[in-house]
């Protein structure tokens, strides 16, 4: 029989919990000791993180990954339950159990990322599960450390408090999203990208314009355009119009530069073919050059989706009516309601991802012929 291959993560996880085990065993029955040295949940958590070290290398890889997954997360749940009511009192045992649970999660992810499944469904699932475990552990460690070390609430609230805050202030967050995203961002995004697109078509028609606008557009993209925000607030007032103006200016140039580059992307061969078909400028534009430019245009739309949110939020730092995501962030920071700020940031992150995701989905639908979508 082959000697089992011990994984270093599981072995290290075991080494880390030796100290808590010793303390636990020697103190059995002594009440009032800090977690995990007493009680059922501490013992169970220690047992859970030691378990995979025993089985490491003796099981099928996938079973080992499942075991690590269950043990790591079970220990994490017990850990977070154990610290409730004893915030700020965590000793070394607490962190050792946390560290070894994290190592097991790493082991699980390491096994999973070695897998090269044949079916498409399984590989998609793996592509989602692996980052999900990673993200979950960032939250677990954040929660465990802020609560365990009793980090002051205004410094860094634990994720659970942020979640509670989101749940309890949904109307306020909804109003902010409506003001910032549905009014300022969407209007500015559509108008800015639209004008950028039209100017790019004009610039493509007139070579003089193209030669002049492209270097300027490239240079402008490096400038801190966000600085026009106070001017726009001065011109268009405090309401959403000024934010939309900032968004228009920020989204215009990326669209211009990318569309011009995209219109040059169709090959000579294809253009010659269109000529032999005796197609005019507009036919060539609509049937050949715009579809060929689509990947570039969508690239600009994706860049702009982030820029638009940033523009609208930062512009609100310069003055708004009493609603809006940027307004909420800057005032709640001043009032030291850091959990509300985090809630707003979480909403902004979610909105940004959804926005980007929608653009990416439309891109897949429109540029279905492109090699990067067909997956080669």
């Amino acid at each position, binding site marked *: 029989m082959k000697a089992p291959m011990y994984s270093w993560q599981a072995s290290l996880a075991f080494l880390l919990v030796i100290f808590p085990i010793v303390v636990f065993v020697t103190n059995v029955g002594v009440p009032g000791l800090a977690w995990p040295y007493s009680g059922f949940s501490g013992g169970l958590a220690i047992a859970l993180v030691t378990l995979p070290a025993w089985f490491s290398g003796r099981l099928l890889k996938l079973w080992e990954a499942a075991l690590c997954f269950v043990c790591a997360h079970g220990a994490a749940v017990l850990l977070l339950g154990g610290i409730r009511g004893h915030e700020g009192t965590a000793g070394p045992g607490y962190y050792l159990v946390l560290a070894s649970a994290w190592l097991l999660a790493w082991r699980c*992810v390491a096994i*999973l990322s070695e897998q090269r499944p044949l079916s498409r469904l399984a590989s998609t699932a793996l592509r989602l599960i692996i*980052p999900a475990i990673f993200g979950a552990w960032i939250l677990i460690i954040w929660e465990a450390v802020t609560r365990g070390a009793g980090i002051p609430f205004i410094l860094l609230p634990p994720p659970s408090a942020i979640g509670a805050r989101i749940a309890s202030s949904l109307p306020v967050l909804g109003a902010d999203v409506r003001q910032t995203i549905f009014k300022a961002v969407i209007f500015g995004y559509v108008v800015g990208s639209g004008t950028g697109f039209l100017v790019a078509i004009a610039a493509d028609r007139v070579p*003089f314009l193209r030669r002049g606008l492209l270097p*300027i557009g490239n240079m402008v993209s490096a400038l*801190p355009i966000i600085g026009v925000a106070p001017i726009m607030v001065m011109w268009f007032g405090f309401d959403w119009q000024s934010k939309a103006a900032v968004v228009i200016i920020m989204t215009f140039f990326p669209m211009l530069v990318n569309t011009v580059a995209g219109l040059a992307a169709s090959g000579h061969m294809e253009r010659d073919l269109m000529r032999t078909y005796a197609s005019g400028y507009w036919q060539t534009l609509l049937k050949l050059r715009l579809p060929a430019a689509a990947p570039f245009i969508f690239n600009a739309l994706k860049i702009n989706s982030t820029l638009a949110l940033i523009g609208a939020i930062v512009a609100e*730092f310069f003055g708004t009516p009493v609603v809006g995501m940027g307004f909420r962030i800057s005032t709640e*920071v001043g009032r030291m309601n850091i959990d509300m700020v985090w809630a707003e*940031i979480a909403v902004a992150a979610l909105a*940004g991802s959804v926005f980007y995701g929608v653009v990416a989905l439309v891109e897949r639908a429109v540029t279905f012929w492109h090699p990067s979508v067909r997956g080669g």
Partner: protein
Amino acid sequence: MDTFRDKLIPVTSILAGVVVLWYVMAVILNTPFQRDLDRRAGETHTLSEFIGKTLAQPKPTLPAPHQVAVNFFENTFLRPVTSNRSLVYNAWVTLSSTLLGFAFGTALGIIIAVGIVHVATLDRSLMPWIIASQTIPILAVAPMIIVVLAAVGITGLVPKAMISTYLSFFPVTVGMVKGLRSPEIMHLDLMHTYNASRAQTFWKLRVPASVPFLFTSMKVAVAASLVGAIVGELPTGAVAGIGAKLLAGAYYSQSIDIWSALVAGSVVAALLVMVVGIAGRIVDRAMGGRPA
């Protein structure tokens, strides 16, 4: 390929067009206020006098280009550099945190990229988050970082530099991962036939191949880093820096000050990008690259 001279005439004529348009807009936008002033003073002017006055208001809606230029020149060259109204001083304050953040961000980005390229677990678990994080409006975190760090007693350069670091490490990470993976299978196989170790492959093949990618992404990163530093100066009403100038201008409606701070920011951005570009070209040449 457009040569420099091919571009020169179109670029200058479009810039000239922008300046002319700017003057026209300045007259149009400043007219209502000037008419109001004249009516109150009971004065009437000829058209040319009236236009002259719209271009010389102390707090115009849109300052004329020459007003901005004069203000910029005065605040840049005529004031002592130590004065807190000097643009050189304010630009330096912003620039120092930009550079500190940029240096940290680049280093962090490179380290993460090396980790992602060499550790499969990191590639599968961290990379999706790095890409996802580019879709969220990170700048929204800026005020919180500043205020929270100030509550712990950390003020001044470091919090602003942290925002710059945060903004600049994403482009570097993504660019470097691409760059370190850019050697073709052929080249990697060649290193294999030489029996090169992982470290040797890394230093002799991957690193040289990634240099062009590094400088391209550093150009993006340095611009992002400057934006981070400027926005970092907004929320606390920082005393100095380009962002502070913008905020002060916005509070007191000093539109000319805002515009000249904006020009200063643009000059700094253009210089930074240029410096990175030149450094990239020097490194490229030192490594034996030839102009294509």
